[in-house]
């Protein structure tokens, strides 16, 4: 452990302010569901499901079929079930996923950079 040095993060004013801004951004994430729904746009290019690929090119490429379900994510597509009924549900789950994901990312990054930097001292 580092000797007398205070390694524990004490946040300055600007850092606290940015944290609040990030929290507000989290609350706005449902825009990422609502805007595409409003304009009725499809998936991102190259991120189609095997089913959609079949509609697009007439077949499911063999390798794609083999690999596409290789991983079962706990919250697929920032949601809890594949086909959520209403847009309100989807937005709600999206918001919660955003908060969970951002928090995990924040903590993971603090731990990782903390480890990297402290190892050097």
């Amino acid at each position, binding site marked *: 452990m580092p000797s007398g040095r205070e390694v524990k993060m004490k946040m300055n004013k600007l850092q606290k302010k940015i944290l609040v801004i990030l929290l507000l951004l989290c609350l706005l994430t449902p825009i990422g569901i609502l805007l595409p729904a409003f304009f009725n746009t499809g998936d991102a290019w190259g991120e189609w499901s095997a089913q959609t690929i079949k509609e697009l090119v007439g077949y499911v490429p063999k*390798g794609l079929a083999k690999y596409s379900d290789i991983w079962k994510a706990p919250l697929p597509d920032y949601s809890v079930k594949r086909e959520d009924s209403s847009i309100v549900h989807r937005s709600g789950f999206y918001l919660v996923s955003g908060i969970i*994901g951002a928090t995990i990312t924040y903590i993971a990054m603090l731990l990782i950079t903390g480890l990297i930097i402290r190892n050097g001292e």
Partner: protein
Amino acid sequence: MHIPDGYLSPQTYIPLYGVFAAAVTVAVKKVKKEVSARDIPYLGMAAAFSFIIMMFNLPIPGGTTGHAVGSAVIAILFGPWAAVVAVSVALIIQALIFGDGGITAIGANCFNMAVFMPFTAYYVFRLFNFNPTRKARVFFAAFISGYLSLVMAAILTGIEFGIQPLIASSTDGKALYCPYDLKIAVPAMALEHMLLFGIVEGLITAIIVRYFLRNEPGIIYAFRKGGKNENE
């Protein structure tokens, strides 16, 4: 730009895992050297910011959706190596927990958005080689840095998609992985990012860099790293 599982052949995703692993190895050494402990909270926030900003799917009416990544602003503020770590953490969590981007494609996605993009952004920004007091010029340079780096990363992703039919097709001529070739994949990825998502990346980069220039100019890596330190 998050390539899902099944779109890249093993001949593509395995080498990209290798390249990504090599980049991380260097990044760890560089971050140890360059980042001071007091900036750790900023890096945590940078990773979280990247995660959140990628959730803002924006539509191109009549087309597809996409988003900014945040790599450019992180590279300018905290350095490209710190950006490698921050954006990789966000991307890996997106893949593992939310299925956004494939498990087999983690190396590719991290290489595109967390290695290639921050370095492109950083060097584009440094090309302008200006004085930090010229605020309008800094704003403009940051915009171009964000815009170009996202568009370039999108083109790189389009190339990875587009070479799949060349690498792996079955005997009847059907693709095994991504079915679209370079002529389709590259323009598709490039155009949508040039039209909309690149502009968003450019704007958030410029606005945040300006914000830091006003509030904590001393922290900005791209300005700190000048003169003596530059070639170390």
